[in-house]
């Protein structure tokens, strides 16, 4: 009988803890079969602890949850010795550590993320446990005696309370709870403090409540315990949850970083292409023009006609030196954009003082230029004559301001939203432009005159 009770205690608490953890970790990045593995680990830990720790103390002496599970009693022992207290705490502590470690192994969670999830799961189980105690106290007060495990009322209370609490927490927290790793790492101290406080609160309240014995003080203590735990749980969730805004920001940040990496790679590619092919193509063009003798490597290549070679030479010359803004990052972006526009049949001419945009930071400067060029390219694409698909931009400092002017031909009936064009896919560029001008101070002006769309962006760095 003693062995069966140990088994029940050993499996009961870890399974409750595992269920609570699963309820609040719906959106954790579980590995394949991670949830099953987690349950198995928790069950195994519970069984091992039942054999090791619970063998050192009488089963009925184990604090709170175990005591209730064993006897159904709502009146735990008041004369608990130190050893039992320490072993009991060790029992729950090891379960919590096992949950933390299992989460790290079964879900793709960092140490800190797993700690938050484990603490949230533990808090949930503790709230349910505390409410069960209160429910049993209420039943005892109403019926005149504590229900025991052999009575249906005990299991009814148990099922109702645990199911209710877990469902409520899943509904309110679990189904939308995504841990924001950037957020918790940025405020690591606060997150650790919150998790520690939650654990301490549970441990201390538990020890204190057990020593209160029965009666009104015990009831008050239980209520206090549930409230403290709930508050700690709410704080932990607020501190670590990825809300919609921060999630969107994180996505935007990742997208921006990916774009930056893309531009760097493009720039590298362009430089490599230029380095490898530029000289060879120029030699070819010069040979055709009769300005240079044939080399051994090129002697077998077919010669172009002088007119074609001239075009080729000019194309190369304009390609490899489209923009020199004085800012390598902006050069790469403009060259990349120039190539992208050229592939769409739009010619870009740019004269840009890159240093003028350093006040914005690289990311915002990239965003501004991408938005301006996307906006103008969208407008240029509306003109029916392919010859007119050309975009011209200049940007330089004017006094204390930085002015960016863009021009392109457009369809006669170009639709405008305010002063910005309403072109397919151009909404994002327009929003980005308005946002950046708003952030840095300045003004945005766009107008159509005689089939030409003109965009003026003036930024006032000092106003930012």
């Amino acid at each position, binding site marked *: 009988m003693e062995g069966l009770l140990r088994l029940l205690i050993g499996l009961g608490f870890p399974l409750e803890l595992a269920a609570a953890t699963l309820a609040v970790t719906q959106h954790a990045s579980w590995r394949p079969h991670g949830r099953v593995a987690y349950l198995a680990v928790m069950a195994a830990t519970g069984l091992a602890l039942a054999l090791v720790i619970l063998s050192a103390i009488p089963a009925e002496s184990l604090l709170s949850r175990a005591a209730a599970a064993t006897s159904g009693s709502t009146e735990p022992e008041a004369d608990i010795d130190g050893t039992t207290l320490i072993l009991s705490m060790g029992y729950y502590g090891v379960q919590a550590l096992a949950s933390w470690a299992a989460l790290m192994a079964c879900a793709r969670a960092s140490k800190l993320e797993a700690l938050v999830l484990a603490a949230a799961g533990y808090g949930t189980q503790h709230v349910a446990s505390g409410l069960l105690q209160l429910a049993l106290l209420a039943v005892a007060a109403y019926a005149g005696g504590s229900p025991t495990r052999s009575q249906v009322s005990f299991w009814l209370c148990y099922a109702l309370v645990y199911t209710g609490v877990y469902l409520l927490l899943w509904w309110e927290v679990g189904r939308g709870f995504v841990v924001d790793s950037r957020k918790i790492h940025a405020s690591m101290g606060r997150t650790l403090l919150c998790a520690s406080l939650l654990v301490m609160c549970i441990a201390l309240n538990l020890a204190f409540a057990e020593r209160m014995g029965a009666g009104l003080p015990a009831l008050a203590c239980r209520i206090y315990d549930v409230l403290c735990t709930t508050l700690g749980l709410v704080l932990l969730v607020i501190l670590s949850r990825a809300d919609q805004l921060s999630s969107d920001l994180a996505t935007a940040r990742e997208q921006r970083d990916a774009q930056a990496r893309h531009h760097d790679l493009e720039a590298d590619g362009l430089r490599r292409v230029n380095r490898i092919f530029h000289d060879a193509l120029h030699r070819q063009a010069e040979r055709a023009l009769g300005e240079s003798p044939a080399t051994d490597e090129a002697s077998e290549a077919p010669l172009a006609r002088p007119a074609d070679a001239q075009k080729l030479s*000019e194309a190369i010359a304009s390609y490899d030196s*489209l923009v020199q803004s004085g800012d390598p990052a902006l050069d790469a972006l403009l060259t990349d954009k120039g190539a992208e526009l050229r592939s769409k049949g739009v010619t870009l001419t740019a004269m840009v003082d890159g240093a003028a945009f350093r006040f914005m930071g690289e990311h915002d400067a990239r965003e501004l230029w991408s938005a301006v060029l996307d906006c103008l390219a969208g407008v240029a694409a509306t003109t029916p004559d392919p010859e007119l698909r050309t975009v011209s931009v200049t940007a330089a400092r004017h006094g204390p301001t930085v002015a960016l002017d863009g021009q392109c031909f457009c369809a006669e009936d170009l639709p405008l939203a305010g002063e910005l064009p309403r072109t397919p896919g151009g909404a994002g560029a327009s929003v980005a432009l308005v946002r950046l001008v708003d952030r840095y101070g300045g*003004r945005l002006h766009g107008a159509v005159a005689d089939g030409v769309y003109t965009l003026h962006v003036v930024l006032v760095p000092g*106003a930012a």
Partner: protein
Amino acid sequence: MLRIAIVDDTEADAAQLEGLLARYFSPASPGSEAAACSVTRFASGDALLTAHAGDLDQTFDLLFLDIEMPGDNGMRLAGRIRTAGSRVALIFTTRVARLASLGYDVEALGYLLKPVQYPQFVLAMRRAQDHVAAAHANKDVRLTIDADGQTRYVSSCDILYVEVNRHRLIYHLADGDLETWGSLKDVSQRLAMAPFVAVNRYALVNLEAVSQFAGSTVTLENGDELQVSLARKTDVAAALAEHYGGE
């Protein structure tokens, strides 16, 4: 009438540009006026400066400068023109974009890749016409100032800023200060048509003279710094953006 000079050592290129100008200003072209330009050709920068060193701004509205020229190339020529104090509009022509893409250093309006294509040429001309129109817009206001027993006629363009100290008005000009009595409100009304903005309760600043605006300070061409009051900061930024943004 737009007065244009083409500085190019290559006869064919200069002729092509002249042809594009003729097409642009022909009555059939949208937004143009018939015979609305005069074109003068120069084979080198030296030829241009020899003929019009002192009166470039008065003689021409727009210069097309070829970058690849013997002697002073277009970029160096533009540098000499700016050093001489001319604000004439510049557009480079070149076969190699790289050589012209640093044109912002000499406040060029843009560049055209040779052989010049008409669509690009049209865009450059639109920009040039806007620039010339803005430069010719008369924002100058003449003020009569009685100072030190003398009456002086001062152009608003020459005023860097005006400040007041207990009804003592100080006009800070590029070549010295003038002191008189009056209120800043009166001066503000008289300069309403000129690009001036109040940076605080005691100072009115010429936007053209502002070289830097950072934090809560505007720095003027002569190095003077003025505090911008918190309440005026947004207005000052808006005025600067309006002034330099154009329409």
